[in-house]
């Protein structure tokens, strides 16, 4: 693990260049450029808002629904986009991979970082909105970098794992798309946690709340939205809020790099077709 960290540090120029390439390819030509990094998710939030708040009348506790949506959709977007782009990244960038021997995992990592950079302005908007609407920020905001770090770890771990798998098993991409969709509904992005608790039997809800993405999403809200922690304190414990996400992050990172280490020597053989 240390050698991997060492490698990542040693190749930081390459990671930065890959991040730059990723962002440039995305925003160089569109007239609105980097503005799309905010605009895209914003449109999505608006749609969700119209559907769920205005038509289906879903209510969020304590915080305005639009803000509630934003705090989840933007981070979810970061995760989903990183993961789906990373999964195919080794094949998409096969021309780069075949040029020289460099650790393949730098590609998913660079994609995760690019999407993180993409996510930061949106995050700033959430913080400002939250500050204005809720008249202040929670003390927990000091943990925001830690939450981001945790989320990044989960993203990188899964990305490395799937990118390696995808080289040999091309079904992964479709399975992943379906799984992400499922996960999107399984995490309280556009409904309040209480709604889930009320509609599920108790043991199912416990199971549900063990989902590390429930934890990470709520961590975002706790650190961003003033007074949010109080509203969920009663039905979600430290197990699902802290232990699960952290444990999951460590597990996927280890699993991801373990998979890579096992497949490393044969990956390039599969990249030609």
């Amino acid at each position: 693990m240390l050698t991997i960290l060492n490698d990542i540090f040693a190749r930081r120029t390459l990671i930065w260049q890959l991040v730059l390439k990723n962002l440039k390819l995305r925003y160089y030509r569109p007239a609105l450029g980097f503005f799309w990094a905010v605009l895209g998710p914003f449109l999505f939030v608006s749609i969700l808002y119209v559907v769920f708040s205005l038509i289906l009348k879903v209510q969020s506790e304590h915080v305005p629904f639009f803000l509630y949506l934003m705090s989840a959709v933007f981070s979810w977007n970061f995760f989903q986009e990183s993961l789906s782009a990373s999964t195919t990244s080794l094949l998409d960038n096969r021309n780069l991979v075949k040029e020289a021997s460099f650790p393949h995992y730098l590609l998913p990592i660079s994609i995760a970082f690019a999407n993180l950079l993409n996510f930061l302005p949106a995050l700033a908007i959430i913080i400002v909105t939250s500050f204005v609407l809720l008249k202040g920020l929670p003390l927990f905001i000091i943990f925001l970098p830690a939450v981001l770090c945790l989320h990044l770890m989960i993203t990188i771990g899964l990305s490395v794992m799937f990118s390696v798998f995808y080289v040999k098993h091309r079904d992964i991409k479709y399975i992943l798309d379906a799984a992400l969709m499922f996960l999107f509904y399984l995490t309280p992005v556009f409904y309040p946690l209480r709604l889930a608790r009320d509609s599920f039997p108790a043991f199912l809800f416990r199971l549900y709340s063990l989902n590390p993405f429930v934890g990470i999403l709520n961590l975002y809200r706790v650190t961003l939205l003033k007074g949010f922690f109080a509203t969920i304190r009663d039905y979600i414990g430290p197990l699902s809020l802290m232990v699960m996400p952290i444990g999951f992050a460590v597990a996927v990172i280890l699993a991801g790099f373990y998979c890579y280490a096992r497949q490393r020597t044969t990956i390039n053989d599969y990249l030609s077709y």
Partner: protein
Amino acid sequence: MQDKEQLLTTTSLIEKGSSSTAKDVAVRLVGVKKKYPLPSKADPSFAGFWALDEITLDIGQGEVAGIIGRNGSGKTTLLNIIAGVLSPTQGEISLKGKVLGLFNLGVGFQDELSGRENIFLNGSILGATRQELEAKFPGIVEFSELGDFINMPLGTYSQGMRLRLAFAIVANLEFDVLVIDEVLAVGDALFQNKCFQRLMDFRRAGKTLILTTQSIELAERLCDKVFLLDHGRLLFSGEPAQAANRYRAILDSETFFVGPAKKAISLVSNTKKWADDLANWGKKLGAKEVMIDAVEMRNRFGMRCHKIKSQESLRIKVKFSARDEVKEPHFGVAIFRDDGVYCYGPNTEFDGREIPGLKKGKGWFELRLKRALLAPGVYRISVAIWDKNEAIAFDYHAGYYELTIKGSKGTNALLNMPFKFAPEGFKCTPDLTLLENKWEQRSEAKVINIDSIKLLNRLGEEKNTFMTNEPVKLSINFSPLNGCNKDPYLWVGIYRDDGIYCQGITTLLGENKDFSIFFPKLPLLPGDYRVSVGIWDNLLKEFLVYEHGIYAFKMLFDRQDHGTIYLEHKWRWNFKI
């Protein structure tokens, strides 16, 4: 991570091996095998194959190693394994130092990004740091000759520009071992030579170079050691010349494959008739291991000159200095008319003069032409010192020197071959512009008729194929129709079949019905030629009758040569061997 592992195994292996080999080993492969995995849906009857089978080889530090072999013999796989892009299925590889690879045309290029951005992306993939790239950036741009294009998206680049950029990046980065896969074939001659120069610099700097190539000549000339692969196996490793011979043997054994650079055993039926590249005229090209210092032309009195009379002797002396020791060079001189028509281009290789090698130092060679059988006009002379098979020029001055042949002008003929008339006659100059657009046409006979045109060999047999330098008699028969009394002239023109006017012969026809022109040695080089005949009325200034470019004949030669006409010559030289 990978590099470190490799380095570790390298040091241990090399320590073991150091007792037996004096030179440091840069790359060592032991029993390397490679099998590519098959797609799961592949044809089950296809059993798969070993792309590489038990390859064991050593490449010493500072060596230039060539890998040759047919398509699909495993060259690229081997290079990929050395560059660390692929891993062997079995066997061990150990490398010393940093390996850079140049595969395809900068495969990692992004069309949407500019040349500048691609330099940074590509360079960092190849392991350079930001500081290093910033320091090297001006050098890369300069070497690539891209100029302002460096800020344009790569999608706007031509293949050649991509190659230049790709090579420039690799050539400017730090490395110990450089691996190049057949890419240099794409560049133009000028850039290719620049690349070879750079490769030579690397060699001098003690870097290890490994390249694959289809060009046996290149492998022979550049490499210290050549590996011959066939069907994934290492057939031979060692001396370039021996490897090249074995490779030629493989190529010859394949029935459908026409091997390059086959020596002419059969008769040559055509030679080069035009300059290859007029755009390079006036340029000095070459890898510059040997430099041409001066070229002097001397007339029959041994005086330096730029003008001689037609059919006079001419000596072209080339002084050079070798900056490096070179193996098996050959010298060449070529004469072109200034529109690019190839007159003659002898070289020592065609003449079977073997030059074992040049040592460092100065020397000269001289081409002595006995008679310059060229028509008056302006000519261009190229001089070159090539490697054995003309794959690379050490130094090549293309169309650099001007030579004027003095004499009465008037026609745009190319040659001035000696001949004899049966009946002697007066001369005049028919207006050949009248024959423009009349190629392969004949006029209707009004006053006089051309009955026959014949070419005869020395036994008097009619032939239409002759050997270069064979005695040839051209015989023409006429029958005068009514009232022919205007003292007509006979004009005979010899043309190349691409319409280049080689030589015209005119004489007073008088009362003759038969006419013959005798060439004691027809010096035309292999190819197709035509004979035109016309009867010219010098008072009316028109052709009474003509037959233009219809009668065809062919020249053959028992040896390779370049150009249109064979000029008797000798070589002289003086240098350290």
